[in-house]
């Protein structure tokens, strides 16, 4: 499946402006709460504003909170981030606890996450520590000066030992021990 005919932008996992490397900056810039003072769908929103909003504002002095009471309009939360994204979310008929959780979610995001399809779930600036593979990495340096084709490099060196070779080695070992016996005799 190619990406050319899909209009969802794709990107990688990145933190804007190397966020955690220096100090951490909360990416939520301002939050606008629009609600109706009387309509039933804004009930959760009104409860949130009455009970939890002041604590939220006190805990996050870096977020500017705007309240827009509008008659006959459904409750909406618009979050604006430092990279310019605007996240619009309807809070119609949501309970106070749900709204609290959604606002907490928006506070900890770094932009509109649903606008970007992540191509990979990891990111690194240094994909290789020992250096990327090249054909020279595991090459025998003797091949540099060898004149190819050479049976030294061409013959199979992983064949099992033949019976003749095994016998010859056994004979050599036996001969060495015979020589040792002779030397011992001489010493005596």
């Amino acid at each position: 499946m190619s990406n050319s005919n899909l209009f969802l932008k794709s990107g990688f996992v990145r933190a804007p402006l190397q966020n955690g490397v220096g100090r951490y900056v909360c990416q939520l810039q301002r939050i606008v709460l629009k609600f109706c003072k009387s309509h039933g769908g804004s009930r959760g929103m009104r409860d949130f504003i009455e009970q939890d909003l002041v604590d939220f504002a006190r805990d996050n002095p870096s977020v500017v909170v705007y309240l827009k009471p509008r008659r006959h309009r459904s409750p909406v939360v618009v979050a604006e981030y430092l990279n310019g994204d605007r996240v619009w979310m309807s809070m119609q008929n949501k309970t106070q606890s749900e709204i609290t959780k959604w606002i907490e979610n928006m506070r900890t995001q770094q932009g509109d996450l649903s606008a970007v399809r992540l191509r990979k779930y990891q990111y690194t600036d240094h994909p290789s520590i020992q250096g990327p593979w090249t054909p020279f990495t595991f090459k025998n340096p003797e091949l540099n000066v060898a004149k190819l084709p050479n049976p030294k490099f061409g013959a199979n060196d992983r064949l099992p030992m033949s019976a003749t070779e095994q016998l010859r080695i056994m004979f050599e070992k036996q001969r060495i021990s015979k020589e040792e016996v002779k030397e011992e005799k001489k010493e005596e």
Partner: protein
Amino acid sequence: MSAAKRVQQWATFARTWHIFDCKWQDPYQSADLIKKYLMGMHKPIYHPMNDCGDVVVCINSRDIALRGDEWKKRAYFHHTGYPGGASWTLAWEVHNKDPTMIIKKAVYRSMKGNLQRRHTMERLLIYPDEEVPEDVLQNVTNQIRQLRLVPTRLDHIPEDEVRKFPKVMDYPKDYVYK
């Protein structure tokens, strides 16, 4: 892209030229080995869309060894496309006509039948004996090890090795060979 990164990529994707001596080798067994180098499957950077295959130069393809009585019995099929153009040619006939064809067909057969096959086959150079053009031989920097043992002829073993080899028994000096 900085020069260091450009040069690093050039090195990683460089195409090595390998040489393979087909003397006394089974073409179908060697084809499985050669195709890996042609497709680039011996590299950690392999990907089918990556075009990372190497060049393989096969020499001594005249001295190939088919198993059993395949020389007499194995037949290669060819159809010219015209009606009545089917022909079955035996392996020895094909080999006499063109000594490089058997190993070429063996490598072609060992690969998957996809559109990359024809392109990959272009990277295989086959020579019937040791005579390889000078510029091709200069490019070669690696040798692929053979799969089968090439036995040494008894009269090709050097004399001092024959003398040194431990003997179980030896004929007496005045023995008369029949």
